[in-house]
């Protein structure tokens, strides 16, 4: 298996710079997910690693060797495309064995490998079918099978689940996680869905506008977002972000005034903050409570009942919208007035340029 190292990777299309100097180490056998909003360059970055796009500047090292100029098939990678990109005129077996066929691998060996991969993916019964006779999930499996047959050092996935319906997506997500476990391979996975990123990754790379915003383990990103962008992007429902102003600072705490809500003490220390500086306070829905100790008044606008939990979308007195996760059997209803408890310890503080403090 293999490591992938990106050193100052840049990519421009004409005058348009889409990847702006990416540095990243991908360890052997790790599952790395590139995540970000559409247009952030995550797919382009994957295509640069795959060799489907030429790297404008910087070095790509695969297993320590520079691979910038190696053709795609010589990099020891296999890619699963968003559209599956199956060969429509070939059978499932033909699709999976294509790479071996053009590499002139003897028929018997080719068949053995195809059947082996089909067994892993439970495709044995479908080997003689054409792609158009398969369901979406089956096509996805064939695309993965085509990658497995090549025994690559690194698997690349380009939004592989985005064409599947919700139920199938969850199922395939689990299958991909199991596959990673059983194949013991390095995997690089691109998605815009942060839930996929959170559930699959050993390491998440959050991208925006062609640059890395933060790299880290899923829970690390969840609990310690480096800036407002990562805070807002990772986690579902989204982190509540409330505008505020610094009122006072001490050695152990910062007091802020939440616009239209009230004052709050946060146990952080910063030498960079100035009084009256505009800041943002972030707090996750599950860290908020609705109870008698609540300091702040709000009105329930929507109650989303998911069963085990309920999301209350409330409007604070100052007009800010806040999402609160409460118990599934809570009686709170639409139009109710509630008292929201915000605990300073559970809040994140971001300065005026959006950096976490």
């Amino acid at each position, binding site marked *: 298996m293999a490591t992938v190292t990106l050193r100052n990777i840049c990519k421009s299309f004409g005058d348009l710079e889409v990847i702006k100097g990416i540095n990243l180490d991908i360890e052997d056998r790790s599952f790395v997910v590139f995540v970000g909003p559409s247009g952030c360059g995550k797919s382009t970055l994957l295509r640069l690693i*795959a*060799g*489907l796009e030429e790297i404008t500047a910087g070095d790509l090292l695969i297993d320590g060797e520079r691979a910038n100029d190696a*053709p*795609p*098939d010589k990099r020891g*990678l*296999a*890619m699963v*495309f*968003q*559209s599956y*990109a*199956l*060969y*429509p*005129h070939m059978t499932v077996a033909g699709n999976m064995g*294509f*790479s071996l066929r*053009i*590499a002139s691998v003897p028929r018997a060996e080719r068949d053995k490998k195809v059947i082996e991969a089909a067994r892993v993916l439970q495709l044995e019964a479908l080997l003689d079918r054409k792609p158009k006779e398969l369901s979406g999930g089956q096509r996805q499996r064939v695309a993965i099978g*085509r990658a497995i047959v*090549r025994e690559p050092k690194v698997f690349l996935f380009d939004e592989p689940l985005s064409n599947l319906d919700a139920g199938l997506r969850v199922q395939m997500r689990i299958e991909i996680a199991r596959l990673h476990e059983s194949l013991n391979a390095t995997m690089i996975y691109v998605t815009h869905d942060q839930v996929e990123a959170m559930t699959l990754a050993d390491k998440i790379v959050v991208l925006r506008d062609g640059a890395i915003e933060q790299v880290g383990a899923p829970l690390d990103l969840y609990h310690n977002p480096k800036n407002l962008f990562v805070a807002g992007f990772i986690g579902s429902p989204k982190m509540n972000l409330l505008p505020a102003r610094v009122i006072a600072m001490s050695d152990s705490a910062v007091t802020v005034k939440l616009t239209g809500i009230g004052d709050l003490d946060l146990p952080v220390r910063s030498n960079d903050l100035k009084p009256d500086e505009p800041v943002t306070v972030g707090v996750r829905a599950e860290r908020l409570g609705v109870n008698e100790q609540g300091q702040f008044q709000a009105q329930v606008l929507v109650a989303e009942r998911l069963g085990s939990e309920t999301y209350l979308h409330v409007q604070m007195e100052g007009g800010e919208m806040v999402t609160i996760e409460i118990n599934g059997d809570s009686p709170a209803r639409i139009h109710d007035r509630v008292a929201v408890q915000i605990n300073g310890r559970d809040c994140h503080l971001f300065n005026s340029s959006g950096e976490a403090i």
Partner: protein
Amino acid sequence: MKRSFYKKMAITLIAWSAAIFMFFPILWMLLAGFKTEIDAITTPPLLLFEPTLENYEAVQQRANYIKSATNSILISGGATLLALAFSLPAAYAMAFFPTRRTRSTLLWMLSTKMLPPVGVLVPIYILFRDFGLIDTRIGLILVYSLINLPIVIWLLYTFFKEVPRDILEAGRMDGATSWQELFFLLMPLALPGVVSTALLSIILCWNEAFWSLNLTTADAAPLTAFIASFSAPEGLFWAKLSAASTMAIAPILIFGWLSQRQLVRGLTFGAVK
């Protein structure tokens, strides 16, 4: 329900009228070929007459049909193969690896079709003379493949554009070279398009008259020259001309008829998905 019935009737009527209108000259030629020379030029034209084969006999005696037909087949087929040999890689490159100039190159190629052929007759004739290509099949194959190249490339380009890029990229990840991509992936996927392009090219070559009349005399003369030889200085012999024309268009007509399904399928390839 009623309305759609009338609509259908109207469409059928219009389609049939158009078809008959277009087919009429061919029908008239077919009939004239079986008339005597006198009957053929009678006014008002005769619809009922005693059919005769004398024109076909006369045509056979005066000119070598088999030889011309063979020339037509070899030249049309050869020119089409040659054009495809250049166009397939060209269209592949333009469809999947476009550069800033691809669009204008395509337009420029098409613009060469606007040039009246007679404008380059003299230079081409001199080139042909110097290279000993006059009245050779090779010469006509070269000229035909060149004049059809823009159309063939355009058509293939449009058909190739319909093939999802991902599939070729998957092929590249699987280790396919450009040629393997072209033959294992692109060709099978765009086959209806490639076949109808070839058919169209054959038909265009078959019907081409300007260059065949100017660059051949006897050895390489295709059917167009064969027909032309019947508008002789002694006057127009309508019946014999019609018989000769019927013989000249018969092969391509039958060929086109047999392949019309393929032709239509190819030309609408990708449009209905």
